[in-house]
């Protein structure tokens, strides 16, 4: 059986703009949410989502219908997010922990944008702490954790999206979870 997305993709390939708009509708909010969790910046998340669909549109004919469409589109999206995280501070590695502040790395130093959805709501202390913890996750753990907790993908699916062996995904989930646990340990 052929998936809805594959059918829409074929229609879009034949020049049907409405079919492509349907694909956008199916994935736009999910991708936006995911990009936001990776970047913690609304503007950047919007840019990434736009970029994702542009790439999908340009490469529709290369979509392999035997692969799940969601895997394909998440792969494009995570790659773009990781690219952006890398580009933010090109001079030194963000993953390196800074000497002065124990447990803080480059990500923690980046001022997050003020217009976060979180700030529009009143956050409890607990929520603020966990938000902070997730925001400071190093990029390679963040992509895994976002796919795991936000998209609720299985380890195998995450491996497919990120094109890495399941064992690596597993290790990253474990390390990411421990990272968060340590950040929360004395605060909760």
């Amino acid at each position, binding site marked *: 059986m052929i998936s809805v997305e594959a059918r829409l993709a074929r229609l879009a390939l034949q020049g049907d703009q409405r079919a492509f708009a349907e694909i956008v509708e199916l994935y736009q909010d999910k991708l936006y949410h995911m990009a936001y969790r990776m970047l913690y910046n609304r503007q950047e998340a919007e840019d990434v989502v736009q970029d994702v*669909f542009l790439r999908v549109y*340009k490469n529709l004919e290369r979509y392999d219908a035997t692969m799940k469409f969601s895997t394909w589109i998440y792969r494009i999206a995570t790659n773009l997010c990781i690219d952006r995280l890398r580009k933010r501070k090109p001079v030194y590695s963000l993953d390196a922990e800074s000497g002065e502040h124990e447990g803080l790395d480059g990500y923690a130093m980046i001022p997050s944008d003020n217009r976060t959805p979180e700030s529009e709501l009143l956050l409890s202390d607990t929520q603020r702490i966990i938000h902070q913890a997730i925001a400071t996750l190093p990029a390679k753990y963040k992509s895994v954790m976002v796919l795991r907790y936000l998209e609720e993908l299985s*380890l195998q699916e995450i491996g497919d999206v990120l094109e890495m062996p399941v064992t690596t995904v597993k290790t990253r989930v474990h390390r990411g*979870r421990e990272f968060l646990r340590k950040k929360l340990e004395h605060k909760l």
Partner: protein
Amino acid sequence: MNCNVAVMLMHDYLDDELPHDDIAGLKAHLDSCPACRTRMEQLEQTEALTHRMMDTHFVVTAEQSSQLTQRIMSSLPVKRRRTGSGFSRWVRNHPAVSVAAVFVLVMFSSFLAMWQQDSQLAVRGPDLAEVVIKGDTVTVPAGAHINGDLTVENGKANVLGEVDGDVTVISGSLYEASTAHISGEVKQIDQALDWFWYKVTTSISSLAY
């Protein structure tokens, strides 16, 4: 159970990947080790909080959403390149077959070109001392004895004497006198395909020896 092992099992448990038998083992360890029990509680709490945090407090209004949709749709390139035609897509999807087909085509056309260009008389054989060539006629005179094969290309072969081997005539004609004696095979090649096959087999057998 070692505490390090227990921590590994805890993660597997949270990933829903812990075999049933190991769950009992982990439980036994947690009952006896307060440190690990605390750790397990922290991990579970982290897990739950992360889940909740990722999922909630993210509001996208319908208006924002449709604005983004509009932005995406208007950013698409207006004119699509017409790359979707069946042939080019097929070529893109079957690179190896396409390359092989092109290779065969080039080989075949070069052989064909050689076939058409080659109009010079050529005589080949290990023993050509007694062969007489006049114009485009290659004669093996009566009484002559040729040791080995004789190949004539683009000419007439006129065999009156003895040939101790094969006689091959390529795009030409062969006359055999009643006095002629050919010990080997007599081959006449006229068709491009026969000629092609002949070229391939001779070049392969010459490679082999």
